[in-house]
């Protein structure tokens, strides 16, 4: 598992920080100076052919400056001394351009500083490109040989290493290298009445070497995916309307992120989110508690750990809902000043050329006391929803999730599998219907959030019993 420092990477991180130190005297206003490098690897096999074999390494420097209540920002891929100074000057000039026209005379952003050094580079030997393609070919070969009735198969490795060094005028100084490695398998079965597909994702926090390399380790999980696809191909469409359902961890995680989390981001609250009227009010069943974890949850590392955010604030957990009551929003420095709270370490940028936005980190409904088997047994007619494809929600907390794997529940037992469907509801209404919460939770390993900039997030939860609208045919 990742966690120990890799000596060569550590050296590079220190060099980046020491390089930034040389520009401290160039700051004339509140300033954040960030060096960032995102390294992507993407190899994709489609029916055995390698349709993508690409690497992408994008790095550069950015500066963000706050002056009188407005911001200036600039970024460049060039990082020589004169380029960094030009970026700081341009950001300062942009802030002053707006300040001279807006004249807001806002309070300064004074919240102290944080320091951190967190490098999660693998401690294993680095795999050569040929090893990685060899591993994927073995996986693909197993799929082809084991399931000859599959009409299409796709095997994709998608890895992202996000490396950041940050220096601020307030004294924050932090370095992090947060990796994520994902193996995405998608299978399609066509029995003559239209293709049916199903996918799964393996891996998560860490680099390729931390999760992959031995194809046999995945065969059992691939077998399970195929069995589910077979069941889905013979599945039924659910009956449209409102039903009792069990939303398993995958959907509970999307619910926590999309339908609740976004409505409590302070910038969305200022933009008219319905949660703006709910602070300290009961918004859910007392069985529901929901937290945005910074880096460690229930004693274990989170999928996307944030120790110091991109404004230089130390990452702290935010209890958004406690026993059904909305207790807090998610803040950056500016909105914390507006609402009179302390910033929570939620300001994150996706690429070097992006400004930090209020983002969730690892958002999860906390586990309860019920057993999943008892929850299923408690439903006479309803559905067990196991896997989501995507989700969207809006400021009213009305949400929609695509469901790509699920089962009907008849007399307390799982029945036929479901074909693709959609569920929807108003989250703050639906959360009041939660009547059971399972005692185990899990994280989705591949969460991405698309608010202006696409960025990895952690989403998790237990299984939740509630009532929800389900789309039929």
């Amino acid at each position, binding site marked *: 598992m990742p966690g120990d420092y890799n000596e060569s990477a550590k050296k590079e991180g220190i060099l980046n920080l020491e390089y930034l130190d040389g520009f401290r005297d160039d700051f004339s206003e509140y300033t954040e100076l960030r060096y960032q490098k995102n390294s992507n690897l993407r190899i994709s096999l489609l029916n055995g052919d390698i349709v993508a074999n690409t690497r992408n390494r994008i790095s550069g420097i950015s500066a963000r400056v706050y002056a009188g*209540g407005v911001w200036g920002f600039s970024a460049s891929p060039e990082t020589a001394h004169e380029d960094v100074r030009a970026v700081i000057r341009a950001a300062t000039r942009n802030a002053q351009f707006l300040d001279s026209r807006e004249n807001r005379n806002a309070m300064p952003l004074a919240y102290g500083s944080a320091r951190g050094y967190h490098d999660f580079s693998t401690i294993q030997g680095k795999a050569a490109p040929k090893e990685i393609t060899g591993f994927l070919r073995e996986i693909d070969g197993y799929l082809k040989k084991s399931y000859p009735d599959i009409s299409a198969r796709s095997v994709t490795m998608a890895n992202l290493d996000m490396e950041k060094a940050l220096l601020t005028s307030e004294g924050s100084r932090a370095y992090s290298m947060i990796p994520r490695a994902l193996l995405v398998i998608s299978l*399609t079965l066509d029995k003559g009445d239209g293709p049916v597909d199903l996918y799964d994702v393996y891996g998560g926090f860490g680099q390729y070497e931390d999760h992959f390399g031995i194809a046999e380790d995945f065969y059992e999980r691939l077998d399970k995916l195929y069995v589910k696809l077979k069941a889905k191909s013979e599945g039924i469409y659910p009956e449209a309307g409102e039903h009792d359902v069990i939303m398993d961890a995958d959907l509970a995680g999307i619910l926590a992120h999309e339908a609740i989390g976004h409505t409590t981001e302070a910038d969305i609250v200022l933009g008219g989110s319905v949660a703006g009227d709910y602070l300290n009010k009961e918004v859910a069943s007392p069985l529901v508690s929901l937290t945005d974890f910074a880096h460690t949850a229930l004693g274990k590392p989170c999928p996307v750990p944030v120790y110091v955010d991109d404004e230089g604030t130390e990452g702290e957990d935010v209890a958004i809902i406690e026993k059904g009551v909305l207790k807090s929003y998610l803040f950056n420095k500016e909105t914390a000043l507006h609402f009179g709270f302390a910033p929570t370490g939620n300001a994150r940028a996706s690429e070097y050329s992006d400004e930090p936005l209020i983002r969730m980190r690892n958002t999860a409904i906390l586990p309860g006391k019920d057993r999943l088997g008892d929850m299923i047994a408690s439903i006479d007619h309803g559905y067990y929803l196991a896997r989501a494809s995507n989700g*969207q929600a809006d400021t009213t907390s009305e949400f929609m999730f695509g469901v790509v794997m699920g089962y009907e529940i008849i007399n307390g037992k799982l029945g036929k599998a479901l074909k693709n469907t959609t569920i929807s509801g108003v989250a703050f209404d639906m959360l009041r219907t939660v009547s059971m919460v399972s005692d185990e939770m899990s994280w989705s390993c591949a969460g991405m959030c698309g608010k202006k900039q696409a960025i990895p997030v952690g989403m998790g939860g237990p299984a939740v019993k509630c009532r929800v609208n389900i789309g039929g045919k």
Partner: protein
Amino acid sequence: MMMSYDKSLEILKKSCSSLKETGAEKTACDLSHSKTHELNVDGGEISLFRTIFNTELTLTVIKDARKGTMTTNRTDEASIRETVQETYDIALSSEKDPAYDISGHNIMKTELSGDEPDADRMYERLKEFTADVRQKYPEVILEQAILDYKVLTRHYKNSNSADLYHERGFYEFTVMFSAKREAKSSSFNYVNVTMNDLSRPLFDIGGVDRLIGEAPFLIETKPFPGKCVGQIIVTPECLMDFIMFLSSHLSDRAMITRTSFLKDSLGKGVASPLVTLRSLPLDPSMAGGYAITHDGFPAENLTLIEKGVLKSYLLSQYGAVKCNLDRAANNGYFYVLEPGDDSLDAMIGRVKKGLLLTRFSGGNPGENGDFSGVAKNSFLIENGEIKQGLSETMISGNIKDLFQNITAVSRETNDSGHSRIPWVLTEGITISGK
């Protein structure tokens, strides 16, 4: 500073020369550079001004029918040499596929006359917009608005002596908004438009005024009454989402795996005879159109569907070889759906019970084209009249059926700057409320 043509040529010459030294039989270098000036509105106030430069150099190596690609944004000599070696190593790690190829010999050069926006003019237009919204629609909250000016250059060279250079500059405006009255708020909505200049107020472009103006009418909503198979009028913005679903089934992945519901359909009817769909990236009225395809060919305008008949897929050079079909003349986008003869009012008047679908929030359609999701920012239509705003209303159907069942196309179109799309009336969609 924007990268000049001479500078990009120098980087590409170094890259091509270094690639040639590897002994690979086919190589390509693709250099993109961008400069963006961007003003942001948050919570109704102009709050951020950004200036961003970026460069991306993508190298491709085909060696013994094995292909590798690598992208970097460092273009100094040492970085180029390092990237060339890595690209070569990636290619060697790949598997042989005779379908890998690069584009043929083509020469093209298009330059812009200037690349600097007027920051004061941008600020004034945005300030004017926020003031207009406050004055005209006081219940509307501007969650976020972004006005930017982008200059993009792309320079492509390969070992077949292709040398393509294209420079484009355009303004883009995106606004996300909702409306709030006391404790109640509407669902959020958004609109995106592009412009060649700032000669018109932002409010007057595309669907900006229409969609923002609808928001206050969506604060008080009700679910669609009951469940029915009904008629739907799809707005231009929402129709673009369905066109994108359709185009994904014309493209490489779905076609190569033969999971596309449009496979084997060339020359056949795939939509109502009222549907003629073109992709026009070279149309001068399209702000930000591209002139070079992803795989290094000069782009051309393209008719995808003519009077309901499929005229072209959207296959790349690789996809075309794999499917034994023709390569498409472009990569899609910049869509124009030909207007019809009906007025929008007449189309609404024809609906007995259905809805005006403004935004679709749904799961990705299955490979058979089935979709289901929530009708957002939409209105009930009853007996030919638009009634209340809707919430908690789901729709389901099939993408292919949706296009086949179009019975009317409006003569009014929405010009977003990157598309020109009318309203359509389609039937056979299941609508369910409460």
